[in-house]
């Protein structure tokens, strides 16, 4: 080989030289070039850290642009609704709590509310207020997990640890009131299982003082992070009319400017007693979804403060012995109480035949519970309208025509919980 002759190029060098450095055309403007014409079908998940669980997305890509998404679900289907048909009503509560594993109090509330409608039992005011306190604490805990994991998807790592720090405080409170940190079985048909212990209120007040400051900090960290803002602002918006057609509710709908919140619109569990605002967004992009949830944390703190200040005296669970267990001390002295206890624990209570649908506002939207009773002590059908399941349908509408990186941000802002989707 003479020194003037060029050496033959390696395959790598040939490929390198074939790349033109002219700016790529913007795929949003259509007219795709020769190279990006090809469609690529990609399996996203089911085991992928950015899918927030075992969610599999069949993504059709044109270059880096998402053309179609088909969610494939069912990987953690455990037949909870079928199991519920085989258990007495009060034994169903711990089973349904495990559906949406971040908002267990809400699952229990939806089911207990439906059964309370069927048996026409009144929940005492103190029981309702205690429920509100735990529901809103659970809402904050759920939003904290969402915030931490979503920020992780967007590349902000440290905030995950901060969020878990506050969630830890909430779980400690749950442990104080019920003995369990998750899936507490605290809500019972007719009220709550036990009154809050001594020291709970002061610990809760400590948390209520800290939480808004911490939420300020989260907002300050993320709102001044250029990368997070660029990935959220203006990405994957969807208008309220389309969202309503897709059955989307909760923070996703409120981010698009529709202030629909069942706590205000159709108050249950004494929510009408409290003064709180409903945060709404304007354009319904990912930033609005983020901002609405962050603002909801402050409102939940306000609700808990009012509920704690106005916590009425009285029983925490209904006095109806046909539905609720008698207090422990009565068992030693009253034959009647012993019989009731035995009946409830062995057979459970019988529920008049009928069908009801009870909807509440979970951290992810309308959580409805449909219960059909055939008159026996076991439900004939329990169906949860899980908001994650319904909201997931909106993903392809949101992400279509956007970059795959924006789809990851959208999945994060959608906040799907696969335990709730698959049930």
């Amino acid at each position, binding site marked *: 080989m003479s020194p003037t002759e060029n050496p033959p190029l390696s395959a790598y060098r040939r490929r390198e030289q074939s790349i033109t450095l002219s700016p790529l055309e913007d795929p949003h403007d259509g007219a795709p070039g020769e190279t990006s014409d090809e469609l690529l079908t990609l399996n996203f998940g089911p085991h992928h850290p950015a899918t927030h669980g075992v969610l599999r997305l069949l993504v059709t890509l044109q270059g880096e642009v998402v053309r179609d998404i088909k969610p494939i*679900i*069912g990987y953690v*289907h455990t*037949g909870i*609704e*079928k*199991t519920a*048909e*085989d258990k007495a009503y009060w034994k169903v509560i711990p089973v349904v709590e495990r559906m949406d594993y971040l908002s267990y109090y809400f699952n229990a509330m939806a089911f207990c509310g439906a059964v309370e*409608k*069927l048996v*026409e039992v009144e929940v005492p005011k103190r029981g309702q207020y205690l429920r509100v306190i735990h529901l809103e604490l659970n809402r904050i805990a759920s939003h904290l997990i969402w915030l931490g994991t979503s920020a992780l998807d967007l590349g902000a790592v440290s905030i995950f640890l901060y969020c878990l720090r506050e969630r830890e405080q909430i779980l400690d409170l749950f442990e104080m009131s019920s003995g369990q940190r998750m899936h507490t079985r605290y809500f019972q048909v007719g009220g709550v299982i036990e009154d809050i212990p001594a020291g709970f209120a002061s610990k809760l007040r400590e948390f209520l003082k800290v939480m808004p400051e911490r939420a300020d900090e989260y907002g300050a960290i993320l709102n001044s992070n250029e990368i997070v803002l660029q990935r959220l602002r203006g990405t994957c918006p969807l208008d309220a009319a389309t969202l*309503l*057609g*897709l*059955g*989307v509710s909760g923070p996703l709908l409120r981010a698009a400017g529709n202030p*629909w919140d069942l706590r205000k*619109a*159709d108050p249950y569990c004494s929510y009408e007693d409290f003064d709180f605002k409903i945060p709404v967004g304007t354009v319904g992009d990912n930033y609005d979804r983020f901002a609405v949830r962050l603002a909801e944390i402050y409102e939940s703190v306000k609700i808990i403060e009012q509920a704690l200040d106005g916590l009425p005296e009285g029983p925490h669970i209904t006095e109806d012995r046909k539905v609720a267990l008698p207090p422990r001390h009565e068992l030693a002295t009253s034959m009647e109480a012993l019989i009731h206890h035995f009946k409830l624990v062995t057979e459970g209570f019988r529920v008049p035949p*009928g*069908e*009801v*649908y009870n*909807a509440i506002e979970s951290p992810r939207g*309308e959580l*409805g519970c*449909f219960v*059909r009773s055939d008159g026996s002590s076991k439900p*004939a*059908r329990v*169906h949860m*309208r899980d908001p994650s*399941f*319904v909201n*997931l*349908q909106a993903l392809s509408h949101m992400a279509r025509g956007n970059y795959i990186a924006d789809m990851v941000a959208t999945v994060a802002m959608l906040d799907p919980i696969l335990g709730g989707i*698959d*049930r």
Partner: protein
Amino acid sequence: MPDATGLELLAQELGEAALETVYFREQATIVIDPAEVRAVLRSLREAGYSFLASVHGVDYYPEEPRLGVVYELLDMSRVDRIAVKLRVGMDSPEVDSVTAEWPTADHQEREVFDMFGVVFRDHPDLRRILMPEDYEGHPQRRDFPVGGEPVIFTRDAAEWLEARE
């Protein structure tokens, strides 16, 4: 909720499509003729019930017609709910799909099909959604036994090992 009178008025407007009205625990339900489901939901949408909150499947075993589908409609401006219920028999468990007018029904109808075997005519993509594609039977039916599920991965592993030898 519409009160009992309001429910009767709504049912009257629907004419022959409405078979029965149920007012139970302050919740209104209209039982309709399965063939008329799309027309009924359309006229209820015109009456203001524009949000389809949920679709449930129900099995009324051993009653006949056995399978039921319940549509929970919501009027957001009046905060008013109404349930529309239809019953189909096991001999031809078929209902018209409402996915064209209510995109939210897509996944929910697939779930009812998966769990109860109700076939939704003209559904764009009627496949199983929660159970595996090759699963046999509809597990939420009342006569479907609890437990005794063969472990699919184990069976596959045996086949795979056999093929490799």
